[in-house]
């Protein structure tokens, strides 16, 4: 039986029709391509009217195959499959030709664009005729969720899921949840105390019956697919028995080893070798850092053990691998601070009184190393003047091109705190002021009123070498003041560098573990930048918070909630569709050579010794097609991407090329 193909060419407003002669293409396809019985162009194929057009034609003209030449299949393949299904056709008998992203948006020459569209339409028509009806599989969704990262985004996501009645495994690398937010003193623009709003949420997580909290732990391996993942989590040895430990803190008090805390205290405070990062830590149990613990170094000490009233110190504890089954995964792994030493002319690490923003956050914090007092590096002198340098490592082609989004507001917050706590004069060196959310502009106006000095320009150099009178013993900020139009040298006592937010150093590694990709800058890539900001290209993996891109607390919370809502949707539905694009071995053609067996990364190919043939376990097959291409006997077919379909696509795509060769095999055009 001959197929009856319907071709629909979308104008996409002027997005396609502005470059491509869509009417000409539709007419051409109707006349020149074999088996095309309906060929139309329409303003917006994805609109409900466009879809109805297809549905009507299927019913009226008995179409058996549909080709839609429009945008990328990643956007609307599902739309048109659904339309076909509504009209009673198998959804896999449709094919899209991507003529917007791949042609009209990338081509200037109208004639060449139209010619290319014809080839792409011909390819789709040739291919669609050979497509086979496929039935998608549905699998149950495990209602448990794995959340990686216990910062504010991960906390929010976990709590929303747990409150809805679903179980959450929350994995955190540090000894306590809280993330960067726990390090801050005040939060802009309302200046409410960070700990006051965060710690209730943290203890909710710690006490929630639906949350299994695993701190000092990391994801080791993730296998399976949407609905049914298997996660291996490495719980590093804490050397503290969590059942016996009461969190009294005597061990911490008695530990003789003090070390600089480069994580929570950002390098300006100390902790012990056995420690909790901060007083309100959740869970309250300390961990022993084996790299600095005297016992692990010399075999002597055990002060913590001697003084522990409940004998909770366990020296022979080992790392534990915990396996959990989950249906979905939310990544909320946050950000790292830009290494300000990478910009040598700003003097960080060389000039004592140049601080990073995280150091300064800790200094402002009442629970921090200076008890909230703002001092110079010597720990006693109050600065008389402070400069805050924006965009350190961001908005700079040498480091990161993106804007870190939070630094303007954080700098304003610092300005306010400095003026509140000290008599110091504050200078802000900014390129552009970007207070662009609710209440932010008002906060900027408030700081202008409070007397913070703003100098618009990028800082060229920060030096402790005096050149002019009045610069002795000061840090001199050299800046081009673009509003005054001249170079200025401003002597100050201390400088705060607003370092950029950067992707976690191991974000890429984690991305590979769970099968999602990173942007050029290294942030996790969302499914769609506007319309699907928390889903990823891999079904069942969601992202929230700063691991997706620089963002402040309200935005991270919103994403955490959004990701949890998406997961709840999946759980509520209970079943998830698995694409039926899998490979199958034709037993009668298989020689049993087993070449394919080792090619499969998912171990989906097994060997049946008694029949001397290989066979594919469809529940494990992800449909990459590598085995199909490798089979020397051609015994393996890849559904929806079989050889015949791809050769047909090739014939169509090169319909106009064959005149240039002498042989004209199997012409696609009648």
């Amino acid at each position: 039986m001959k197929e009856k193909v319907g071709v629909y060419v979308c104008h996409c407003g002027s997005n396609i029709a502005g470059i491509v002669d869509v009417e000409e293409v539709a007419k051409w396809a109707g006349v020149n391509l074999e088996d095309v019985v309906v060929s139309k162009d329409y303003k917006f194929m994805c609109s409900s009217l466009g879809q109805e057009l297809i549905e009507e034609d299927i019913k009226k003209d008995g179409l058996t195959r549909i080709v839609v030449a429009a945008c990328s299949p990643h956007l609307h393949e599902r739309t048109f499959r659904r339309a076909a299904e509504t009209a009673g056709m198998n959804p896999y008998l449709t094919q899209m030709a991507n003529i917007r992203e791949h042609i009209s948006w990338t081509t200037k020459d109208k004639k060449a664009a139209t010619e290319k569209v014809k080839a792409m339409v011909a390819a789709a028509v040739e291919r669609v005729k050979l497509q086979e009806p496929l039935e998608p599989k549905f699998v149950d969704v495990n209602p448990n969720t794995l959340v990686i990262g216990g910062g504010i985004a991960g906390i929010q996501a976990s709590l929303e899921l747990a409150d809805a009645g679903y179980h959450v495994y929350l994995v955190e690398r540090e000894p306590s949840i809280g993330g960067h937010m726990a390090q801050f003193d005040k939060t802009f623009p309302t200046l409410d105390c960070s700990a006051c709003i965060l710690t209730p949420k943290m203890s909710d997580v710690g006490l929630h019956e639906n949350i299994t909290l695993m701190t000092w732990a990391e994801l080791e391996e993730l296998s399976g697919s949407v609905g049914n993942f298997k996660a291996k989590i490495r719980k590093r040895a804490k050397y503290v028995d969590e059942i016996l430990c009461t969190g009294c803190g005597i061990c911490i008090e008695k530990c003789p080893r003090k070390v600089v805390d480069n994580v929570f205290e950002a390098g300006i405070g100390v902790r012990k070798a056995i420690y909790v990062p901060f007083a309100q830590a959740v869970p309250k149990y300390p961990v022993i850092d084996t790299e600095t613990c005297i016992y692990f170094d010399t075999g002597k000490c055990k002060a913590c053990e001697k003084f522990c009233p409940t004998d909770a110190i366990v020296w022979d504890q080992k790392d534990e691998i915990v396996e959990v089954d989950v249906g979905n995964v939310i990544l909320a792994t946050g950000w790292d601070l830009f290494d300000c030493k990478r910009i040598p002319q700003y003097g960080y690490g060389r000039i004592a009184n140049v601080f990073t923003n995280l150091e300064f956050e800790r200094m402002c914090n009442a629970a921090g190393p200076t008890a909230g007092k703002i001092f110079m590096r010597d720990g006693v002198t109050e600065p008389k003047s402070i400069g805050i340098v924006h965009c350190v490592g961001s908005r700079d082609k040498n480091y990161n091109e993106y804007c870190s989004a939070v630094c303007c507001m954080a700098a304003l917050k610092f300005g306010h705190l400095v003026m509140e706590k000290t008599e110091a004069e504050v200078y802000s060196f900014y390129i552009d002021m970007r207070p662009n959310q609710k209440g932010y502009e008002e906060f900027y106006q408030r700081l202008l009123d409070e007397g913070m000095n703003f100098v618009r320009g990028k800082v060229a150099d920060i030096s402790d070498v005096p050149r002019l009178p009045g610069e002795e013993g000061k840090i001199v900020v050299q800046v081009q003041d673009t509003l005054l139009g001249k170079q200025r040298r401003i002597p100050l006592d201390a400088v705060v560098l607003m370092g950029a937010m950067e992707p976690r150093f191991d974000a890429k590694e984690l991305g590979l573990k769970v099968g999602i990709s990173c942007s050029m800058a290294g942030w996790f890539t969302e499914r769609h930048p506007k319309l699907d900001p928390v889903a990823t290209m891999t079904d069942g993996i969601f992202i929230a918070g700063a691991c997706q891109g620089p963002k402040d607390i309200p935005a991270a919370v919103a994403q955490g909630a959004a990701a949890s809502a998406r997961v709840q949707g999946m759980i509520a539905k209970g079943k998830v569709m698995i694409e039926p694009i899998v490979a199958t071995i034709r037993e009668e053609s298989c020689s049993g050579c087993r070449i394919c067996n080792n090619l499969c990364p998912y171990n989906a190919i097994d060997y049946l010794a008694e029949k001397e043939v290989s066979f594919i376990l469809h529940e494990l097959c992800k449909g990459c097609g590598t085995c199909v291409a490798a089979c020397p006997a051609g015994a393996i077919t890849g559904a929806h991407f079989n050889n015949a379909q791809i050769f047909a696509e090739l014939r169509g795509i090169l319909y106009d090329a064959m005149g240039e060769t002498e042989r004209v095999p199997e012409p696609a055009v009648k």
Partner: protein
Amino acid sequence: MSDGTFEPKIVGFLCNWCSYRAADLAGSSRVKYPPNVRIIRVMCSGRVDPTFALKAFELGADGVLLAGCHPGECHYLEQNYKAMRRFSMLKHTLRAMKLEEERFQLLWASAAEGNRFAEHVAKMTDEIRKLGPLNWPRNWIEKGVGDKEIEKFLKEHEEAMEVPAR
């Protein structure tokens, strides 16, 4: 070839997850590149059977581009390495058949690298435009490869021609 200048036809086999999305991104960022590449989507670069490239040349393509995820970033863990091996193997064969290097190229482009994709297409188009039409396999015969050469080639690579028997 309407206005007399030769415009090569290049077939691009792009993987669904990285390079096809790179091409999508080039489009949505309105990056302009020559319209000479015509794209076929496959789920993975590992799906690309060497015969796909040969078929494309036979059907009149002047060039074939194989594009996938960067090494280590494959959506299917490591299948792009298999694509890479097949690419090298086929490249070797095509070289023996006196096919110019530029006609068959491999590109790694992540979903974020729309620009990289566009730049590569522009460069490849330019290179092949300079080479002129392929006219395969006629060109091959004209260049004197001939039957004897093929036989010699087959003999040299006897082991590769063997299909393991059961």
